[in-house]
């Protein structure tokens, strides 16, 4: 069962009466608990406090109330970074999942060499977050890059895809779609769970390829689609490396690849404006939390559980 499934199953009661092992259990948990408090919860509380202060690492934090948040309301670069991030998330995630689903469905039909193709398609999702691939992207979509060299062969004049503010973000979307391998593997595992007798029965009733896909595969796969959607949205909101390296650390050209996370890094670690960066981090957490919650809420209307 997935992490999301576990979380929603926690409410169910378990038979009581087992012998407790409190001491042993808490000893085994002690490294995790120490980490939880010292490296996760402690810093979370500290960052919530810092969000209400002006702090540059050198002088002591100064309490300024909601000033960081009111400043966010009038910060044009922040609004732009939100636009960039939302565009990226809502274009690249659906595209990535559509490609992943399409290939998973094709591979699931007992294609010979399926394991080979699965590996090939999976490989980019391991490499995609590396600096090396971001460097490759910088070249491929550059003015004299691989893409334009190939386009020139067929007589098309390309342009500097990365230096043009209207296409720079698009190259990052392509990069994210390129890493469709891991949701594809999850889809493949889900497709295995669908009993073949459903398909056989549908064939007998005269359903075609598309009919079977829309009436059987898609509805039965909705829990997996939902799971991938939640995961990839959370993931995409936090993208950093690719935009950072492709834009040479600037989020340019003209802030067109300035993700929220890049702007946060720029404020916090570029300008040591730690109070503002903390406020931004909490804002990001609220956004991600809200989208995840909205996703769970909406799932009641389209996710189909077969049990």
């Amino acid at each position: 069962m997935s992490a999301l499934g576990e979380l929603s199953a926690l409410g169910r009661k378990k038979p009581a009466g087992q012998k407790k092992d409190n001491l042993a259990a808490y000893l085994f948990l002690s490294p995790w608990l120490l980490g939880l408090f010292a490296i996760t919860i402690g810093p979370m509380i500290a960052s919530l406090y810092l969000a209400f202060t002006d702090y540059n690492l050198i002088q002591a934090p100064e309490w300024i109330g909601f000033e960081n948040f009111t400043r966010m309301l009038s910060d044009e670069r922040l609004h732009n970074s939100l636009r960039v991030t939302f565009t990226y998330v809502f274009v690249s995630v659906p595209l990535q999942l559509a490609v992943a689903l399409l290939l998973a469905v094709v591979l699931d039909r007992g294609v010979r060499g399926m394991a080979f193709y699965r590996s090939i398609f999976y490989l980019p999702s391991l490499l995609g977050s590396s600096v090396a691939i971001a460097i490759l992207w910088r070249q491929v979509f550059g003015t004299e890059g691989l893409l334009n060299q190939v386009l020139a062969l067929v007589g098309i004049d390309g342009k500097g895809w990365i230096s043009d503010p209207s296409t720079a973000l698009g190259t990052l979307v392509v990069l994210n779609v390129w890493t469709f391998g891991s949701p594809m593997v999850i889809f493949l595992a889900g497709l295995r769970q669908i009993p073949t007798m459903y398909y056989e029965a549908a064939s007998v009733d005269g359903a075609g390829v598309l009919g079977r896909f829309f009436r059987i595969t898609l509805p039965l796969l909705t829990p997996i689609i939902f799971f991938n959607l939640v995961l990839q949205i959370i993931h995409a909101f936090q993208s950093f490396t690719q935009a950072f390296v492709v834009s040479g650390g600037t989020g340019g050209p003209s802030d067109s690849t300035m993700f929220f996370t890049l702007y946060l890094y720029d404020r916090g670690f570029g300008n040591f404006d730690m109070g503002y960066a903390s406020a931004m981090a909490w804002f990001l957490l609220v956004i991600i939390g809200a989208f995840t919650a909205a996703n769970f809420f909406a799932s009641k209307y389209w996710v189909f559980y077969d049990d």
Partner: protein
Amino acid sequence: MTTETIRSTVAARRSVGVSWARVRPLVIHVALAASALVMLYPLIWMVVSSLRPGNEIFREPGLLVKDLRIENYRLGWNALTEPFTRYLLNSAAVVLGAVLGNLVSCSMAAYAFARLEFVGKKFWFAIMLLSIMLPIHVVIVPQYILFSQAGWINTFLPLIIPKFLATDAFFVFLMVQFIRGIPRELDEAARIDGCGRAGIFLRVILPLMVPALATTTIFTFIWTWNDFFSQLIYLTDPKMYTVPVALRSFVDATAESSWGSMFAMSVVSLVPIFLAFLLGQRFLIKGIATTGIK
């Protein structure tokens, strides 16, 4: 309907599209092979280009190498303030620490969640699952302050110590799932033979959860090797740079002319990931299929 009639109906339907049925596998194979090629082409081209002289990168979109040279590798290796060996060793040290940390701390926590009954279990388990989804940005600023006050900037400690405290809760979850599949009778048998909790964990559970430990090792290896954000923040001294941070400084430091050596070092940096992928595929695919991690 009897089985016979079902069979004949299905057969009848199939016979209608017999030519399509023959051609279809071929069409699918061609389509799959074409998309695989398009996906991998830039990668293969990067490897090939790194073996070509100087700025052919900007002129030669094909894959043929007329004049094979390892010049770019020699130049790239020494292009930054330290030889590239240094960055590789630094990355290796961070990866080794992170892998050890995750194996020890996550398996301990997973054993408690999967096998022991204790007060507050559900609560802590829920917290653990939620922590998987927590964005790093919410904790990075205070963590940075904490580690810099401890004098840990430009050491590998901020990258390794958290792993010994099971902050990668993904793996706790992955191992919990795995341990749940190990028959409880084995624990009971060991208990009757006089094993305590620690004995059961060390002698029964750990040896049986080797596949989960392998998955954890490979994912930790790949993620830590690729990790950029935290390494960028904590390592500012060129002597301490890991491979991703060094590569990134390459981008800043070099002009167009040294793309060849930049490609060469990028290829070098991807080799370990590629090897991990070849050796550990089985565990990687299983790992994401069961937990949905990236």
